[in-house]
C-alpha cells in the first residue's frame, strides 16, 4: 500500500465510521465536512443580521421581553435620520476617521520606509515601534488618561516645553476643542505600527532588480520613489486603509476609556451612542435601525474599496 496522506487518513479512520461513509459520494462527504461551518456561519452571522433587520421595524425593548413588540414600520429610521444629535455624532466619527487614517498612513509609511533601509539595530527598532499595537485598548486608554492629566501628565509638559505655555493651562480631555484631537493622537499612537507593518511588507516585496534597472536608466531617487515604490506599495496601503477605516468606524473601547464620549458629546462616536441607545436606554428596535444604517454604510464603502483594490492589483 502506498504511504500517501490520504492512505494514512484512510487507515486512521475507525472501522465503524469507515463503514458508515462507504458508498457516499465525494460531494456528500464534502458537505459533511463543510456543513458544520456553514451552520455556524448562518447561526452566528446571518441569522443575527436578519433578526436585527426585523427588530429595526419594531419598538422592541430587550429589558421587557414579556411585552409584545409593535410593528412601527420605518419610524425608527425616520427618527434617527432627523435627529440632529446623531448627526453631530456622525460628524465626530467622520473627524476621527479622517484624521486617524491620514496620520496613520503618513507616519506608518514614513516609518516603514525608514525601517526598510538596512541599518544596525533594525529589528530591535521594529519591535519597539510595534509595542503599542500589542497593548489592550483599555490599558492604552487608561495610561493616556494619566499622560493627559493637566497637573502631572507628561503630555502637557512636553507641549509646554516646545510652546512655552503653562502645562496646566490646557486640558486635552476636558476641552471641547482639544478632546477630538486627543482621541486622534492616541489612536494614531496605537495603530500606526499596524499600518507600518503592512507598508513594510509591501516595500520588502519590491524586487531589487527593478531599482537596479531604474538606476541603469539613470532615474533619480525621487523618480524611483514615485514610479516604483508608491505604485507597488499602493495595494498594501489601500488594504491598511480598509482595515483601519472599518475598525475606526466601530471604535469604542479606547474612546470610552479616554473620554467616555465627553466633554458633552464632542467625542461621542456613533458606536458609543449606539451602545447607549441599546444597553442604557434599552431601545433595542431603535438601536437595531441605527446599527443597520452603520452596517450599510461600512458595507457600501468596503465594496467600492475592494473593487478599487482589485483594479490596482490588476495594474
Amino acid at each position: 500500500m502506498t504511504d500517501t496522506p490520504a492512505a494514512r487518513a484512510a487507515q486512521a479512520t475507525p472501522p465503524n465510521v469507515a463503514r458508515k461513509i462507504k458508498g457516499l459520494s465525494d460531494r456528500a462527504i464534502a458537505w459533511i465536512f463543510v456543513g458544520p461551518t456553514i451552520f455556524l456561519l448562518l447561526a452566528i452571522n446571518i441569522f443575527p443580521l436578519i433578526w436585527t433587520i426585523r427588530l429595526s421595524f419594531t419598538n422592541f425593548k430587550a429589558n421587557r421581553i414579556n411585552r409584545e413588540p409593535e410593528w412601527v414600520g420605518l419610524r425608527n429610521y425616520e427618527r434617527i435620520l432627523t435627529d440632529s444629535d446623531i448627526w453631530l455624532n456622525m460628524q465626530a466619527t467622520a473627524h476621527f476617521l479622517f484624521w486617524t487614517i491620514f496620520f496613520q498612513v503618513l507616519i506608518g509609511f514614513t516609518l516603514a520606509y525608514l525601517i526598510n533601509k538596512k541599518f544596525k539595530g533594525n529589528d530591535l527598532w521594529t519591535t519597539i515601534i510595534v509595542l503599542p499595537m500589542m497593548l489592550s485598548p483599555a490599558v492604552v486608554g487608561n495610561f493616556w488618561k494619566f499622560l493627559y492629566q493637566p497637573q502631572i501628565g507628561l503630555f502637557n509638559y512636553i507641549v509646554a516645553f516646545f510652546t512655552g505655555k503653562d502645562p496646566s493651562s490646557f486640558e486635552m480631555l476636558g476641552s471641547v476643542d482639544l478632546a477630538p484631537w486627543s482621541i486622534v493622537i492616541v489612536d494614531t499612537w496605537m495603530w500606526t505600527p499596524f499600518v507600518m507593518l503592512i507598508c513594510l511588507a509591501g516595500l520588502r516585496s519590491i524586487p531589487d532588480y527593478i531599482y537596479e534597472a531604474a538606476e541603469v536608466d539613470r532615474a533619480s531617487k525621487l523618480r524611483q520613489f514615485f514610479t516604483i515604490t508608491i505604485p507597488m506599495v499602493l495595494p498594501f496601503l489601500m488594504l491598511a486603509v480598509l482595515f483601519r477605516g472599518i475598525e475606526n468606524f466601530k471604535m469604542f473601547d479606547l474612546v470610552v476609556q479616554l473620554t467616555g464620549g465627553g466633554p458633552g458629546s464632542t467625542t461621542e462616536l456613533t458606536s458609543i451612542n449606539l451602545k447607549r441607545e441599546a444597553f442604557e436606554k434599552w431601545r433595542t428596535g431603535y438601536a437595531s435601525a441605527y446599527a443597520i444604517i452603520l452596517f450599510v454604510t461600512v458595507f457600501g464603502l468596503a465594496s467600492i474599496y475592494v473593487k478599487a483594490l482589485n483594479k490596482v492589483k490588476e495594474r
Partner: protein
Amino acid sequence: MSNFLTGLMRLKRGPWEMLATILIGLGVFMLMQPFAIWLYTYSFITTLVGTVMFIIVSHFKD
C-alpha cells in the same frame, strides 16, 4: 460621456458599477457632512440604493 450612457443602456458592468460607486460615495458624504441636515436625512437611502445596485450590477457582463 456618450460611452458611459451607451454602457448604461446596454447593461454593461463598468458604467453601472461607476454609478453605484458614485451613489455610495455621495451617501457617505451626505451622512457625515456638517452643512445641511436634509442631506443627512436622505443619506441612508442614497447609500442603500448604491449598495444594493453595486451588489446587483457586479454580476453584469463586462
